[in-house]
Protein backbone atom coordinates (compact mmCIF):
# COMPACT_ATOMS: atom_id res chain seq x y z
CA UNK A 1 0.00 0.00 0.00
CA UNK A 2 1.20 3.49 -0.78
CA UNK A 3 -0.66 5.81 1.58
CA UNK A 4 -1.64 9.20 0.18
CA UNK A 5 0.66 12.00 1.25
CA UNK A 6 -1.48 14.99 0.18
CA UNK A 7 1.81 16.44 -1.10
CA UNK A 8 2.38 18.39 -4.33
CA UNK A 9 6.15 18.03 -4.69
CA UNK A 10 7.43 18.82 -8.15
CA UNK A 11 4.07 20.18 -9.31
CA UNK A 12 3.11 23.61 -10.61
CA UNK A 13 -0.17 25.19 -9.53
CA UNK A 14 -1.93 28.20 -11.05
CA UNK A 15 -4.32 30.04 -8.74
CA UNK A 16 -6.55 32.87 -9.93
CA UNK A 17 -7.72 35.44 -7.42
CA UNK A 18 -4.56 34.41 -5.61
CA UNK A 19 -3.64 37.69 -3.98
CA UNK A 20 -5.99 37.55 -0.98
CA UNK A 21 -8.55 35.57 0.97
CA UNK A 22 -9.07 31.95 -0.02
CA UNK A 23 -6.73 32.25 -3.03
CA UNK A 24 -3.82 33.45 -0.91
CA UNK A 25 -4.48 30.71 1.67
CA UNK A 26 -4.36 28.07 -1.07
CA UNK A 27 -1.24 29.56 -2.69
CA UNK A 28 0.73 29.44 0.56
CA UNK A 29 -0.57 25.98 1.49
CA UNK A 30 0.28 24.55 -1.94
CA UNK A 31 3.79 25.99 -1.62
CA UNK A 32 4.08 24.44 1.83
CA UNK A 33 3.01 21.14 0.27
CA UNK A 34 5.85 21.39 -2.25
CA UNK A 35 4.32 23.10 -5.31
CA UNK A 36 5.60 26.04 -7.31
CA UNK A 37 2.78 28.57 -7.67
CA UNK A 38 1.60 31.13 -10.20
CA UNK A 39 -0.39 33.81 -8.41
CA UNK A 40 -2.82 35.61 -10.72
CA UNK A 41 -5.35 38.36 -10.18
CA UNK A 42 -6.39 41.71 -11.59
CA UNK A 43 -3.81 43.41 -9.38
CA UNK A 44 -0.25 42.39 -10.29
CA UNK A 45 1.28 44.25 -7.34
CA UNK A 46 -0.89 42.42 -4.82
CA UNK A 47 0.01 39.14 -6.54
CA UNK A 48 3.70 39.97 -6.21
CA UNK A 49 3.34 40.26 -2.42
CA UNK A 50 1.91 36.74 -2.23
CA UNK A 51 4.51 35.47 -4.71
CA UNK A 52 7.20 36.81 -2.38
CA UNK A 53 5.62 34.89 0.49
CA UNK A 54 5.66 31.73 -1.63
CA UNK A 55 9.35 32.25 -2.44
CA UNK A 56 10.05 32.71 1.27
CA UNK A 57 8.75 29.15 1.69
CA UNK A 58 11.44 27.97 -0.72
CA UNK A 59 9.28 27.50 -3.80
CA UNK A 60 9.33 29.27 -7.15
CA UNK A 61 6.53 31.73 -7.81
CA UNK A 62 5.39 34.08 -10.57
CA UNK A 63 2.92 36.92 -10.13
CA UNK A 64 0.75 37.67 -13.15
CA UNK A 65 -1.79 40.45 -13.58
CA UNK A 66 -4.71 38.99 -15.48
CA UNK A 67 -8.39 39.67 -16.09
CA UNK A 68 -9.80 36.16 -16.52
CA UNK A 69 -12.92 37.54 -18.21
CA UNK A 70 -10.86 38.28 -21.30
CA UNK A 71 -10.24 35.26 -23.54
CA UNK A 72 -6.77 36.32 -24.70
CA UNK A 73 -5.59 37.04 -21.17
CA UNK A 74 -6.47 33.47 -20.15
CA UNK A 75 -4.34 32.20 -23.02
CA UNK A 76 -1.35 34.35 -22.12
CA UNK A 77 -1.65 33.44 -18.41
CA UNK A 78 -1.34 29.73 -19.16
CA UNK A 79 1.40 30.33 -21.74
CA UNK A 80 3.40 32.33 -19.19
CA UNK A 81 2.94 29.64 -16.53
CA UNK A 82 4.35 26.96 -18.78
CA UNK A 83 7.11 29.22 -20.13
CA UNK A 84 8.35 30.31 -16.70
CA UNK A 85 7.73 27.25 -14.51
CA UNK A 86 7.95 24.53 -17.15
CA UNK A 87 4.63 22.77 -16.66
CA UNK A 88 1.11 23.01 -15.23
CA UNK A 89 -0.42 20.36 -12.95
CA UNK A 90 -3.11 22.10 -10.92
CA UNK A 91 -5.46 24.91 -11.95
CA UNK A 92 -7.55 26.57 -9.26
CA UNK A 93 -10.31 28.76 -10.70
CA UNK A 94 -10.79 30.86 -7.59
CA UNK A 95 -11.25 34.42 -8.89
CA UNK A 96 -14.81 35.59 -8.37
CA UNK A 97 -16.93 38.67 -7.86
CA UNK A 98 -20.39 39.03 -6.33
CA UNK A 99 -21.84 42.50 -6.88
CA UNK A 100 -25.31 42.83 -5.40
CA UNK A 101 -28.10 44.12 -7.64
CA UNK A 102 -30.97 46.09 -6.05
CA UNK A 103 -33.62 43.83 -7.61
CA UNK A 104 -34.19 41.54 -10.56
CA UNK A 105 -35.32 44.50 -12.64
CA UNK A 106 -32.32 46.48 -11.39
CA UNK A 107 -29.74 44.04 -12.80
CA UNK A 108 -27.78 46.11 -15.30
CA UNK A 109 -26.24 44.62 -18.40
CA UNK A 110 -22.87 45.77 -17.13
CA UNK A 111 -23.29 44.00 -13.76
CA UNK A 112 -24.46 40.84 -15.51
CA UNK A 113 -21.62 40.78 -18.03
CA UNK A 114 -18.89 41.45 -15.44
CA UNK A 115 -20.23 38.85 -13.02
CA UNK A 116 -20.55 36.15 -15.67
CA UNK A 117 -17.16 37.05 -17.18
CA UNK A 118 -15.19 36.52 -13.96
CA UNK A 119 -17.18 33.64 -12.43
CA UNK A 120 -18.02 31.56 -15.49
CA UNK A 121 -16.44 32.68 -18.75
CA UNK A 122 -12.92 32.89 -17.34
CA UNK A 123 -12.91 29.50 -15.59
CA UNK A 124 -14.30 27.80 -18.70
CA UNK A 125 -11.67 29.32 -20.97
CA UNK A 126 -8.81 28.78 -18.52
CA UNK A 127 -9.81 25.13 -18.14
CA UNK A 128 -9.84 24.72 -21.89
CA UNK A 129 -6.45 26.36 -22.37
CA UNK A 130 -4.93 24.57 -19.37
CA UNK A 131 -6.21 21.17 -20.49
CA UNK A 132 -3.73 21.17 -23.36
CA UNK A 133 -0.88 21.24 -20.81
CA UNK A 134 -2.25 19.25 -17.86
CA UNK A 135 -0.66 15.79 -17.58
CA UNK A 136 -2.22 12.49 -16.51
CA UNK A 137 -2.83 13.15 -12.80
CA UNK A 138 -3.60 16.83 -13.40
CA UNK A 139 -6.37 18.49 -11.40
CA UNK A 140 -8.71 21.42 -11.97
CA UNK A 141 -10.47 22.85 -8.92
CA UNK A 142 -13.35 25.26 -9.43
CA UNK A 143 -14.27 27.41 -6.44
CA UNK A 144 -18.04 27.60 -6.45
CA UNK A 145 -20.51 28.85 -3.88
CA UNK A 146 -23.42 27.60 -1.83
CA UNK A 147 -25.34 30.30 -3.72
CA UNK A 148 -25.14 28.05 -6.79
CA UNK A 149 -27.42 25.51 -5.11
CA UNK A 150 -29.25 27.88 -2.73
CA UNK A 151 -29.69 31.12 -4.66
CA UNK A 152 -31.34 34.20 -3.20
CA UNK A 153 -32.55 37.47 -4.77
CA UNK A 154 -29.41 39.46 -3.93
CA UNK A 155 -27.13 36.74 -5.35
CA UNK A 156 -29.17 36.07 -8.48
CA UNK A 157 -26.49 36.80 -11.07
CA UNK A 158 -23.59 35.43 -9.02
CA UNK A 159 -25.59 32.29 -8.20
CA UNK A 160 -26.49 31.72 -11.84
CA UNK A 161 -22.84 32.13 -12.89
CA UNK A 162 -21.65 29.72 -10.18
CA UNK A 163 -24.38 27.22 -11.14
CA UNK A 164 -22.94 27.47 -14.63
CA UNK A 165 -19.51 26.78 -13.19
CA UNK A 166 -20.90 23.61 -11.54
CA UNK A 167 -22.12 22.47 -14.95
CA UNK A 168 -18.74 23.25 -16.53
CA UNK A 169 -17.13 21.16 -13.78
CA UNK A 170 -19.14 18.08 -14.69
CA UNK A 171 -18.84 18.51 -18.44
CA UNK A 172 -15.09 19.10 -18.28
CA UNK A 173 -14.66 16.11 -15.94
CA UNK A 174 -16.39 13.94 -18.50
CA UNK A 175 -14.25 15.18 -21.39
CA UNK A 176 -10.92 15.06 -19.55
CA UNK A 177 -11.53 11.90 -17.46
CA UNK A 178 -10.12 9.45 -20.00
CA UNK A 179 -6.88 11.48 -20.03
CA UNK A 180 -6.51 11.13 -16.24
CA UNK A 181 -7.29 14.80 -15.59
CA UNK A 182 -9.78 15.34 -12.76
CA UNK A 183 -12.13 18.30 -12.46
CA UNK A 184 -13.99 19.04 -9.22
CA UNK A 185 -15.69 21.98 -7.54
CA UNK A 186 -15.73 23.17 -3.95
CA UNK A 187 -19.10 24.60 -2.96
CA UNK A 188 -18.00 27.18 -0.40
CA UNK A 189 -20.23 28.37 2.40
CA UNK A 190 -19.43 31.43 4.50
CA UNK A 191 -15.75 32.23 5.00
CA UNK A 192 -14.10 35.00 7.00
CA UNK A 193 -12.38 36.92 4.21
CA UNK A 194 -11.85 40.61 3.53
CA UNK A 195 -14.62 40.72 0.98
CA UNK A 196 -16.97 38.94 3.40
CA UNK A 197 -16.12 41.43 6.16
CA UNK A 198 -16.86 44.32 3.81
CA UNK A 199 -20.23 42.80 2.88
CA UNK A 200 -21.38 42.55 6.52
CA UNK A 201 -23.28 45.64 7.66
CA UNK A 202 -22.64 44.82 11.34
CA UNK A 203 -21.20 42.24 13.72
CA UNK A 204 -24.74 41.39 14.73
CA UNK A 205 -25.62 40.36 11.17
CA UNK A 206 -22.49 38.21 11.05
CA UNK A 207 -23.49 36.56 14.34
CA UNK A 208 -26.97 35.81 13.01
CA UNK A 209 -25.44 34.31 9.89
CA UNK A 210 -23.16 32.08 11.96
CA UNK A 211 -26.08 30.91 14.10
CA UNK A 212 -27.75 29.50 10.99
CA UNK A 213 -24.72 27.34 10.19
CA UNK A 214 -24.93 23.92 11.93
CA UNK A 215 -21.28 24.10 13.05
CA UNK A 216 -22.21 27.45 14.60
CA UNK A 217 -19.47 29.58 13.12
CA UNK A 218 -18.06 31.17 10.00
CA UNK A 219 -15.04 29.38 8.52
CA UNK A 220 -11.58 30.89 8.62
CA UNK A 221 -9.93 31.32 5.21
CA UNK A 222 -7.43 28.57 6.10
CA UNK A 223 -10.20 25.99 6.31
CA UNK A 224 -10.32 25.67 2.53
CA UNK A 225 -6.75 24.37 2.52
CA UNK A 226 -7.53 20.75 3.48
CA UNK A 227 -10.17 20.34 0.79
CA UNK A 228 -7.99 22.02 -1.83
CA UNK A 229 -4.97 19.82 -1.04
CA UNK A 230 -7.18 16.72 -1.08
CA UNK A 231 -8.53 17.56 -4.53
CA UNK A 232 -5.22 18.83 -5.95
CA UNK A 233 -3.24 15.76 -4.89
CA UNK A 234 -3.34 12.07 -5.75
CA UNK A 235 -5.26 11.48 -2.51
CA UNK A 236 -8.45 12.01 -4.56
CA UNK A 237 -7.32 9.98 -7.60
CA UNK A 238 -10.82 8.46 -8.09
CA UNK A 239 -12.86 11.64 -7.60
CA UNK A 240 -13.92 13.72 -10.55
CA UNK A 241 -17.00 15.69 -11.52
CA UNK A 242 -17.77 16.10 -7.82
CA UNK A 243 -19.27 19.19 -6.21
CA UNK A 244 -17.99 19.10 -2.63
CA UNK A 245 -19.76 21.22 -0.06
CA UNK A 246 -17.52 23.05 2.39
CA UNK A 247 -20.17 24.92 4.28
CA UNK A 248 -20.38 23.86 7.94
CA UNK A 249 -23.40 21.70 7.23
CA UNK A 250 -25.70 24.25 5.60
CA UNK A 251 -26.64 22.22 2.53
Amino acid at each position, binding site marked *: MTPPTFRLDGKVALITGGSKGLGRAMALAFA*EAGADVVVASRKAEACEEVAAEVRALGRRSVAVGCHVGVWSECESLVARTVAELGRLDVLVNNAGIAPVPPSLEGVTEDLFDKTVAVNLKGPLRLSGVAAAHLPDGGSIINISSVASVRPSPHTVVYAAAKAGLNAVTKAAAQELGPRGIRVNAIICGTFQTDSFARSMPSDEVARQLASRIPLGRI*ASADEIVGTA*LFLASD*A*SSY*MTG*ALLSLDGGVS
Partner: protein
Amino acid sequence: MNAQVSQLFDLSERVAIVTGATKGLGRSMAEGLAGAGASIAVVSRDQDACSKVADEITARTGQVALGVACHMGEWDALPVLVDTVRARFGRIDILVNNAGINPAPTSVIDMSQEYLDKLFAVNVKGPVRLAGLVAPVMAARGQGSVINVSTVGAYAGGANFGAYTSAKAALINFTKVMAKEWASMGIRVNAISPGPFNSTMMQGAAKHDAEFSTRAGAATMQHRVAECDEIIGAAVYLASDASSFVTGEDHVVAGGMLRA
Protein backbone atom coordinates in the same frame (compact mmCIF):
# COMPACT_ATOMS: atom_id res chain seq x y z
CA MET B 1 -0.86 28.61 9.03
CA ASN B 2 2.23 27.20 7.35
CA ALA B 3 3.17 25.03 10.31
CA GLN B 4 -0.33 23.53 10.18
CA VAL B 5 -0.27 22.28 6.61
CA SER B 6 1.91 19.27 7.35
CA GLN B 7 -0.24 18.49 10.40
CA LEU B 8 -3.64 18.89 8.71
CA PHE B 9 -4.01 15.23 7.78
CA ASP B 10 -2.24 13.86 10.86
CA LEU B 11 -4.19 11.45 13.12
CA SER B 12 -1.59 10.87 15.82
CA GLU B 13 -3.10 10.13 19.26
CA ARG B 14 -6.53 9.50 17.72
CA VAL B 15 -8.52 6.30 18.02
CA ALA B 16 -10.62 4.95 15.17
CA ILE B 17 -13.21 2.18 14.98
CA VAL B 18 -13.48 0.71 11.48
CA THR B 19 -16.22 -1.86 10.86
CA GLY B 20 -16.00 -4.41 8.09
CA ALA B 21 -12.25 -3.84 8.38
CA THR B 22 -10.82 -7.23 7.50
CA LYS B 23 -11.14 -6.98 3.73
CA GLY B 24 -11.83 -4.73 0.76
CA LEU B 25 -12.36 -1.01 1.29
CA GLY B 26 -12.60 -1.38 5.08
CA ARG B 27 -9.23 -3.03 5.25
CA SER B 28 -7.69 -0.25 3.12
CA MET B 29 -9.25 2.48 5.25
CA ALA B 30 -8.17 0.84 8.52
CA GLU B 31 -4.56 0.60 7.38
CA GLY B 32 -4.73 4.09 5.81
CA LEU B 33 -5.94 5.69 9.04
CA ALA B 34 -3.21 3.84 10.95
CA GLY B 35 -0.71 5.11 8.36
CA ALA B 36 -1.82 8.63 9.27
CA GLY B 37 -1.10 7.90 12.92
CA ALA B 38 -4.34 6.58 14.43
CA SER B 39 -4.83 3.58 16.69
CA ILE B 40 -7.40 1.23 15.19
CA ALA B 41 -10.16 -1.07 16.42
CA VAL B 42 -10.52 -3.60 13.60
CA VAL B 43 -14.10 -4.86 13.63
CA SER B 44 -15.85 -7.64 11.72
CA ARG B 45 -17.81 -10.77 12.60
CA ASP B 46 -14.81 -13.14 12.70
CA GLN B 47 -12.47 -12.68 15.68
CA ASP B 48 -9.62 -14.61 14.08
CA ALA B 49 -9.77 -12.48 10.94
CA CYS B 50 -9.91 -9.29 13.04
CA SER B 51 -6.90 -10.31 15.12
CA LYS B 52 -4.92 -11.27 12.04
CA VAL B 53 -5.61 -7.97 10.26
CA ALA B 54 -4.91 -5.99 13.44
CA ASP B 55 -1.51 -7.69 13.71
CA GLU B 56 -0.76 -6.96 10.05
CA ILE B 57 -1.71 -3.29 10.46
CA THR B 58 0.55 -2.97 13.50
CA ALA B 59 3.40 -4.67 11.66
CA ARG B 60 3.06 -2.37 8.66
CA THR B 61 2.34 0.97 10.35
CA GLY B 62 3.70 0.64 13.87
CA GLN B 63 0.34 1.74 15.29
CA VAL B 64 -1.66 -0.08 17.94
CA ALA B 65 -4.50 -2.14 16.46
CA LEU B 66 -7.04 -4.26 18.30
CA GLY B 67 -9.24 -6.88 16.66
CA VAL B 68 -12.79 -6.93 18.05
CA ALA B 69 -15.44 -9.32 16.71
CA CYS B 70 -18.96 -7.89 16.45
CA HIS B 71 -21.99 -8.55 14.26
CA MET B 72 -23.40 -5.22 13.10
CA GLY B 73 -26.87 -6.76 12.80
CA GLU B 74 -27.04 -7.51 16.52
CA TRP B 75 -28.41 -4.46 18.31
CA ASP B 76 -27.36 -5.60 21.79
CA ALA B 77 -23.82 -6.52 20.76
CA LEU B 78 -22.93 -2.93 19.86
CA PRO B 79 -22.68 -1.46 23.39
CA VAL B 80 -20.22 -4.25 24.20
CA LEU B 81 -18.09 -3.23 21.21
CA VAL B 82 -18.02 0.41 22.28
CA ASP B 83 -17.20 -0.51 25.90
CA THR B 84 -14.38 -2.78 24.75
CA VAL B 85 -12.78 -0.08 22.59
CA ARG B 86 -13.20 2.55 25.27
CA ALA B 87 -11.70 0.30 27.93
CA ARG B 88 -8.66 -0.42 25.76
CA PHE B 89 -8.01 3.07 24.34
CA GLY B 90 -9.84 5.47 26.69
CA ARG B 91 -11.29 7.52 23.85
CA ILE B 92 -12.91 7.29 20.41
CA ASP B 93 -12.25 10.01 17.81
CA ILE B 94 -13.21 8.40 14.53
CA LEU B 95 -15.93 5.93 13.54
CA VAL B 96 -15.95 4.45 10.04
CA ASN B 97 -19.26 2.65 9.51
CA ASN B 98 -18.08 0.55 6.62
CA ALA B 99 -19.57 -2.90 7.29
CA GLY B 100 -22.30 -3.73 4.81
CA ILE B 101 -23.78 -6.67 2.97
CA ASN B 102 -25.05 -6.98 -0.56
CA PRO B 103 -26.28 -10.57 -1.07
CA ALA B 104 -27.52 -12.21 -4.21
CA PRO B 105 -29.56 -9.99 -6.55
CA THR B 106 -33.28 -10.12 -5.78
CA SER B 107 -36.13 -8.35 -7.55
CA VAL B 108 -38.74 -6.44 -5.56
CA ILE B 109 -41.39 -9.00 -6.56
CA ASP B 110 -39.33 -11.84 -5.07
CA MET B 111 -38.20 -10.02 -1.92
CA SER B 112 -38.91 -11.76 1.39
CA GLN B 113 -39.36 -10.18 4.79
CA GLU B 114 -36.27 -11.99 6.07
CA TYR B 115 -34.15 -10.64 3.20
CA LEU B 116 -35.27 -7.03 3.68
CA ASP B 117 -34.88 -7.20 7.46
CA LYS B 118 -31.38 -8.63 7.19
CA LEU B 119 -30.24 -6.02 4.67
CA PHE B 120 -31.59 -3.13 6.72
CA ALA B 121 -30.29 -4.59 10.01
CA VAL B 122 -26.67 -4.66 8.85
CA ASN B 123 -26.65 -1.68 6.45
CA VAL B 124 -28.78 0.80 8.42
CA LYS B 125 -29.74 -0.25 11.94
CA GLY B 126 -26.24 -1.35 12.98
CA PRO B 127 -24.38 1.73 11.72
CA VAL B 128 -27.00 4.10 13.14
CA ARG B 129 -26.99 2.37 16.53
CA LEU B 130 -23.18 2.27 16.66
CA ALA B 131 -22.91 5.98 15.79
CA GLY B 132 -25.52 6.75 18.46
CA LEU B 133 -23.43 4.90 21.06
CA VAL B 134 -20.12 6.44 19.98
CA ALA B 135 -21.34 10.05 19.77
CA PRO B 136 -21.56 10.61 23.55
CA VAL B 137 -18.02 9.24 23.91
CA MET B 138 -16.81 11.71 21.27
CA ALA B 139 -18.86 14.52 22.80
CA ALA B 140 -17.10 14.05 26.14
CA ARG B 141 -13.92 15.34 24.46
CA GLY B 142 -15.73 17.81 22.21
CA GLN B 143 -14.48 16.34 18.94
CA GLY B 144 -15.12 13.47 16.62
CA SER B 145 -15.61 12.42 13.03
CA VAL B 146 -18.13 9.84 11.87
CA ILE B 147 -17.81 8.48 8.34
CA ASN B 148 -20.70 6.43 6.96
CA VAL B 149 -19.87 4.38 3.89
CA SER B 150 -22.75 4.33 1.42
CA THR B 151 -22.67 3.65 -2.32
CA VAL B 152 -23.08 5.66 -5.51
CA GLY B 153 -25.99 3.28 -6.18
CA ALA B 154 -27.89 5.07 -3.42
CA TYR B 155 -28.56 7.86 -5.95
CA ALA B 156 -29.40 5.81 -9.00
CA GLY B 157 -31.12 2.83 -7.38
CA GLY B 158 -29.95 -0.55 -8.63
CA ALA B 159 -32.32 -2.95 -10.38
CA ASN B 160 -32.35 -6.21 -8.35
CA PHE B 161 -30.18 -4.55 -5.68
CA GLY B 162 -32.99 -2.41 -4.25
CA ALA B 163 -32.69 -3.56 -0.65
CA TYR B 164 -29.00 -2.66 -0.66
CA THR B 165 -29.19 0.65 -2.53
CA SER B 166 -32.24 1.90 -0.58
CA ALA B 167 -30.64 0.96 2.76
CA LYS B 168 -27.54 2.90 1.75
CA ALA B 169 -29.72 5.86 0.71
CA ALA B 170 -31.20 5.79 4.21
CA LEU B 171 -27.67 5.91 5.61
CA ILE B 172 -26.95 9.10 3.63
CA ASN B 173 -30.08 10.68 5.07
CA PHE B 174 -29.05 9.63 8.59
CA THR B 175 -25.64 11.19 7.87
CA LYS B 176 -27.31 14.57 7.36
CA VAL B 177 -29.51 14.06 10.43
CA MET B 178 -26.56 13.15 12.67
CA ALA B 179 -24.54 16.07 11.29
CA LYS B 180 -27.26 18.49 12.38
CA GLU B 181 -27.90 16.83 15.75
CA TRP B 182 -24.23 16.61 16.74
CA ALA B 183 -22.64 19.74 15.21
CA SER B 184 -22.91 21.60 18.51
CA MET B 185 -21.02 18.75 20.24
CA GLY B 186 -18.05 19.19 17.90
CA ILE B 187 -18.82 15.99 16.00
CA ARG B 188 -18.74 16.05 12.21
CA VAL B 189 -20.63 13.38 10.25
CA ASN B 190 -20.01 12.71 6.57
CA ALA B 191 -20.51 9.93 4.06
CA ILE B 192 -18.35 8.34 1.40
CA SER B 193 -20.18 6.76 -1.53
CA PRO B 194 -17.82 4.51 -3.47
CA GLY B 195 -18.37 3.61 -7.09
CA PRO B 196 -16.72 0.60 -8.73
CA PHE B 197 -13.71 -0.57 -6.73
CA ASN B 198 -11.81 -3.81 -7.14
CA SER B 199 -13.21 -4.88 -3.75
CA THR B 200 -14.44 -8.09 -2.18
CA MET B 201 -18.02 -6.96 -2.78
CA MET B 202 -17.33 -6.28 -6.45
CA GLN B 203 -15.74 -9.71 -6.80
CA GLY B 204 -18.91 -11.11 -5.22
CA ALA B 205 -21.07 -9.35 -7.80
CA ALA B 206 -18.92 -10.86 -10.55
CA LYS B 207 -20.10 -14.30 -9.43
CA HIS B 208 -23.59 -13.43 -10.63
CA ASP B 209 -22.58 -11.29 -13.59
CA ALA B 210 -19.13 -11.79 -15.10
CA GLU B 211 -19.23 -8.49 -17.00
CA PHE B 212 -20.38 -6.38 -14.01
CA SER B 213 -16.96 -4.92 -13.26
CA THR B 214 -16.17 -4.07 -16.88
CA ARG B 215 -19.52 -2.33 -17.39
CA ALA B 216 -19.22 -0.40 -14.14
CA GLY B 217 -15.74 0.86 -15.00
CA ALA B 218 -16.90 1.94 -18.45
CA ALA B 219 -19.73 3.94 -16.84
CA THR B 220 -17.29 6.23 -15.02
CA MET B 221 -15.77 9.41 -16.41
CA GLN B 222 -12.33 7.96 -15.75
CA HIS B 223 -13.20 4.78 -17.66
CA ARG B 224 -11.78 2.46 -15.02
CA VAL B 225 -12.40 0.52 -11.82
CA ALA B 226 -10.42 1.79 -8.83
CA GLU B 227 -8.05 -0.10 -6.55
CA CYS B 228 -9.15 -0.27 -2.90
CA ASP B 229 -6.31 1.96 -1.67
CA GLU B 230 -7.79 4.87 -3.67
CA ILE B 231 -10.46 5.22 -0.95
CA ILE B 232 -7.87 6.09 1.69
CA GLY B 233 -7.45 9.77 0.79
CA ALA B 234 -11.14 10.52 1.35
CA ALA B 235 -11.16 8.63 4.66
CA VAL B 236 -8.08 10.41 6.03
CA TYR B 237 -9.37 13.79 4.78
CA LEU B 238 -12.74 13.33 6.51
CA ALA B 239 -11.26 11.83 9.68
CA SER B 240 -8.74 14.64 10.12
CA ASP B 241 -8.79 18.37 10.83
CA ALA B 242 -8.29 18.95 7.08
CA SER B 243 -12.10 18.83 6.80
CA SER B 244 -12.85 20.93 9.90
CA PHE B 245 -15.70 22.87 8.22
CA VAL B 246 -17.19 19.86 6.38
CA THR B 247 -20.21 18.06 7.81
CA GLY B 248 -23.40 16.46 6.51
CA GLU B 249 -21.82 15.92 3.12
CA ASP B 250 -21.64 12.80 0.97
CA HIS B 251 -18.38 12.31 -0.93
CA VAL B 252 -18.90 10.29 -4.07
CA VAL B 253 -15.63 8.50 -4.87
CA ALA B 254 -16.68 6.93 -8.12
CA GLY B 255 -14.46 8.22 -10.90
CA GLY B 256 -17.22 10.60 -11.88
CA MET B 257 -19.85 7.91 -12.32
CA LEU B 258 -23.00 9.88 -12.89
CA ARG B 259 -25.49 9.95 -10.05
CA ALA B 260 -28.11 9.13 -12.72
